């Protein structure tokens, strides 16, 4: 390996890496957005404004997802270029793992619940 190209590579990733910083307006915007995104779900549940519980549940979960994205962008300063994209790769990997763990657990356990016969019904079967 040629030492010159190596030095050039090393130079590249010291300057491109590092972490993005926020500005005053981006922090305030993130804060205002997250206050709104927190207040609406609390209000929906406490006032019972929506007619059905299922719809309310779906709406507040959607608000949570949006608020998580807002926090990621405005407070954690996530973008596709920080650390040469490695932090985004780690995040995507984590999201995949979280989705598998959560949906897998809930799915398997709910099937287990509905397929296992309760003891009192079993004793009635002869």
């Amino acid at each position, binding site marked *: 390996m040629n030492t010159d190209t190596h030095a050039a590579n090393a130079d590249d990733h*010291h300057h491109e890496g590092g972490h993005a910083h926020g500005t005053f307006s981006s922090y305030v915007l993130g804060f205002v957005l997250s206050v709104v995104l927190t207040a609406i779900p609390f209000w929906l549940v406490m006032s019972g404004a929506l007619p059905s519980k299922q719809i309310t549940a779906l709406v507040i979960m959607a608000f949570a997802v949006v608020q998580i994205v807002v926090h990621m962008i405005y407070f954690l300063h996530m973008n596709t270029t920080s650390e040469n994209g490695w932090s985004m790769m780690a995040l995507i990997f984590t999201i995949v793992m979280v989705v598998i763990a*959560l949906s897998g*657990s809930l799915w398997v356990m709910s099937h287990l619940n509905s397929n296992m016969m309760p003891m009192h019904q079993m004793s009635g079967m002869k």
Partner: protein
Amino acid sequence: MTVAVNPSQTGEPVFYLADEHPHPEGWSTSLGFWIYLMSDCLIFAILFATFGVLGGNYAAGPAPKDLFDLNLVAVNTSMLLLSSITYGFAMLTMQQNKIAQTQVWLAITGLFGLAFIGIELTEFAHMIHEGATPQRSAFLSAFFTLVGTHGLHVSCGLIWLVTLMVQVQKFGLIEANRRRLMCLSMFWHFLDVVWIGVFTFVYLLGVLR
């Protein structure tokens, strides 16, 4: 740096890299810390999954509706949100090299964090006083484990915050302290992200159930 080995065997010297090129101190810290946060995220994911599975098993004990006071949770959530923005201001003043102002914002962040922990412990004490202990039902075990783990993280963050304030007081905003404040910033905002999941899935959906 390259080093020649075994020049005698083949006649041709073989070169290999004896050393990584030098890195400035702490160049990989923020990526490494981010990866730690992601692994922490997996811990919380498992606790959320456990709560999702066991959250409806009350064992004829109290249900979320009987236990949770959403007004209190809303106040608690606002404490954590406010501490997030004040930490953001601490980072901004740090970038402008204003030590005194950075310390003031860090102290305010710490007070909001302390208020959050105080309210959470009051809530726990109230629940336990009413007999809703972690031993009462699977729902309560999962609840105390998940919310307690989050509270433990915030408490560790508070200890870390005080440590860094002492560091900044002693050594000023040197490069190492800036890096540490950056890591705590990520940790603190990450805990706020986890709390979004907690208040949505545990408290709001619990009361809705």
